[in-house]
Every structure is written in structure tokens, then in C-alpha cells.
């Protein structure tokens, strides 16, 4: 045993207490602060995407409205509810761990995972719809470059066809889809990482690693999960709802 490491805590200290912290309270506070500092970088990261969205929306308002109206509002709204529900179950997982109800906390964590996967599944259906209508921007998909079917003026409504109002071009609609896929794609990646974190938490909870004294991992993973929820709270109206009030005028 290396003799350089001197015991810094009394024998009665919690086994999860690291040697560089005075007590569990200080350790928990430091962890929370660390997570928030990370979330600041996340705010700036998604902030840049929201800024790009803002600039192009004001540059191409007609194309953005038309492209947004082409998204599946029903699926977007269902996903919003699913994600808010998952934030609620996550908050309940934190509560259950804080009060030492291991069984409830495992159930809440599993529910959160299921809801997260539901969100990703619905997102996958939406992405597939876009693939089918050749709406994935650029030449990214072999054999399916961006080439959406466009409705002719006066043509019957067809959900697969883009309805372009005066002033909107296919090129500018493509810009909307670049931003749509960049933002929802980065958001989905965060969800996948979140589901991974939750899986680790569930295993730790299963093994009885958490207690009212020590539950910092659940708490700070919860912060991350809620942050991802907040990003979607902004993405939903900005991407899915921006042109709905113009539907009648745009035709």
C-alpha cells in the first residue's frame, strides 16, 4: 500500500466521499456546479444553432414557413408531450433517490429510458418520412439527393408535395432542412447519450449504490436530461409551428 496517501477522513465518513472534499455536502455542491458549467457550454453550442436558424428565417421567411408547414405537426406535438413526461419521471427518480426509495427510483429511471426511446423512435419515423420524400439536404444519401416533389399551383393538397408560395424556392427550403436536421440531429444525439447515462444509473441504483446521503449522479444526470428537454421546448415551436398561421395565405 502506497504510504504517500494519508487518510483525510475519519473512519465513519461515507465511502463515496472523495479525499479532496471536506464532506458529502461540499462534494454534492461541487458536482452540481460542475454540471451547470458544462450546461453553459451546451447553451452556447445550441445557441449558435438557434442563431443560425434566426438569421436564415429572416432571410427566407416564405421558404421557412412552407418547409415548416411540411413537417408532421402531430408527431412533433406527441414528442413534446413524451419528452415533458420523461422530464417529470426523471424528476421523480431524483426525488425517490433522495428519500431512499430504491424500488421507485429504479421504476422512474426505467420509465424515463422508455420515454426517451419512444421519442427517438418517433423521430426516426419522421426522418424516414423525410427520406421517402427526398427531403434530406445535400447529396448525403446515395441515390436520394435533395429533390422534393413540388406541387404545381392550384394542385390538390398532397402531403408528400411541397407547396411553395411566391418568394420561396426549393433551394431555400433546403436551407431550412439543413437547419432542421442539424438541430434535431444534435438534439437526438444528446438524447442517445442521455439514455446511456440513465442505463448506467439504473444499474447503479439496482446495485444499491445510492442513498439519501449519496445520489449526486442521479441529480446531475437529471440536470442534463432536463436541459435536453428545454432545447426541445424551443425547437418544437420554432421548427414545427412557425408558419402554421400562414397556411391559408400560402395555399
Amino acid at each position, binding site marked *: 500500500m502506497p504510504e504517500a496517501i494519508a487518510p483525510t477522513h475519519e473512519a465513519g465518513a461515507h465511502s463515496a466521499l472523495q479525499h479532496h472534499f471536506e464532506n458529502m455536502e461540499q462534494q454534492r455542491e461541487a458536482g452540481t456546479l460542475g454540471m451547470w458549467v458544462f450546461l*453553459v457550454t451546451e447553451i452556447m453550442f445550441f*445557441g449558435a444553432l438557434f442563431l443560425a436558424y434566426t438569421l436564415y428565417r429572416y432571410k427566407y421567411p416564405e421558404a421557412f414557413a412552407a418547409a415548416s408547414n411540411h413537417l408532421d405537426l402531430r408527431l412533433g*406535438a406527441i414528442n413534446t408531450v413524451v419528452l415533458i413526461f420523461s422530464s*417529470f419521471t426523471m424528476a421523480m427518480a431524483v426525488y425517490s433517490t433522495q428519500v431512499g426509495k430504491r424500488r421507485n427510483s429504479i421504476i422512474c429511471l426505467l420509465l424515463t429510458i422508455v420515454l426517451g426511446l419512444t421519442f427517438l423512435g418517433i423521430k426516426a419515423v419522421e426522418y424516414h418520412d423525410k427520406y421517402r420524400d427526398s427531403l434530406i439536404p445535400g447529396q448525403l444519401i446515395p441515390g436520394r439527393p435533395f429533390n422534393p416533389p413540388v406541387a404545381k399551383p392550384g394542385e390538390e393538397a398532397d402531403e408528400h408535395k411541397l407547396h411553395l408560395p411566391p418568394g420561396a424556392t426549393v433551394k431555400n427550403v433546403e436551407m431550412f432542412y439543413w437547419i432542421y436536421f442539424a438541430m434535431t440531429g444534435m438534439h437526438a444525439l444528446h438524447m442517445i447519450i442521455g439514455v446511456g447515462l440513465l442505463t448506467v444509473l439504473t444499474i447503479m441504483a439496482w446495485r444499491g449504490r445510492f442513498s439519501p446521503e449519496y445520489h449526486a449522479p442521479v441529480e446531475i444526470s437529471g440536470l442534463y436530461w432536463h436541459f435536453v428537454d428545454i432545447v426541445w421546448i424551443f425547437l418544437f415551436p420554432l421548427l414545427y409551428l412557425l408558419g402554421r398561421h400562414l397556411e391559408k395565405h400560402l395555399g
Partner: protein
Amino acid sequence: MSEHIVYPRVYVTIFLVLLVGTGLTVLAAFQDFPGPLNAVVALTIAVVKATLVVLYFMHVRYSSRLIWLVIAAALFWLAIMFALTISDYSTRAWLPVM
């Protein structure tokens, strides 16, 4: 400072308010408000929902001043990024065209 425990009743209330907010934002999106009001309404509802998540789900209402400072700093820097970039893009047309 000991840890504050937020009780399920608070979580349920916030959850229900968030659902109502989602319904409202969809309803509002189909109303034809004058000018840019549609965007203003949508963003206002989103900001209120996000604030509720931050304050209650993320426990910031009961967190230390240090956490508040970190969040304020983030929003301040975000505001700088938006303000400077938008002031550039929105005033480019002011240059004399040669």
C-alpha cells in the same frame, strides 16, 4: 446549506402546467396575429416553460447563489452572441452600394 427536497406535488403541478403550455403554443400557432406577434407569443410560452423546468425540475429555485451566477453568465454571453451577430446582419444593407 443542506439539500432541499422538492416534493412530488410540485413536480406534478409543473408537469401539468408544461402540458397546458404545449397545448397553448399549438393553439396560438394557428391564430393569425398581426406582424411578428406569432413569433413573440411562441417564444414567450417557450421561455415560461423553460423557466419552470429550470426553477423546479432542475432545483435552481433552491440552489446556491453560485448556480444563479453561472446561469446568468450563460444567458449574458448568449445575449452578446445574438446581439452582435444580428446587429451585423440587420445593418449590412445600410452600406452604400457601389
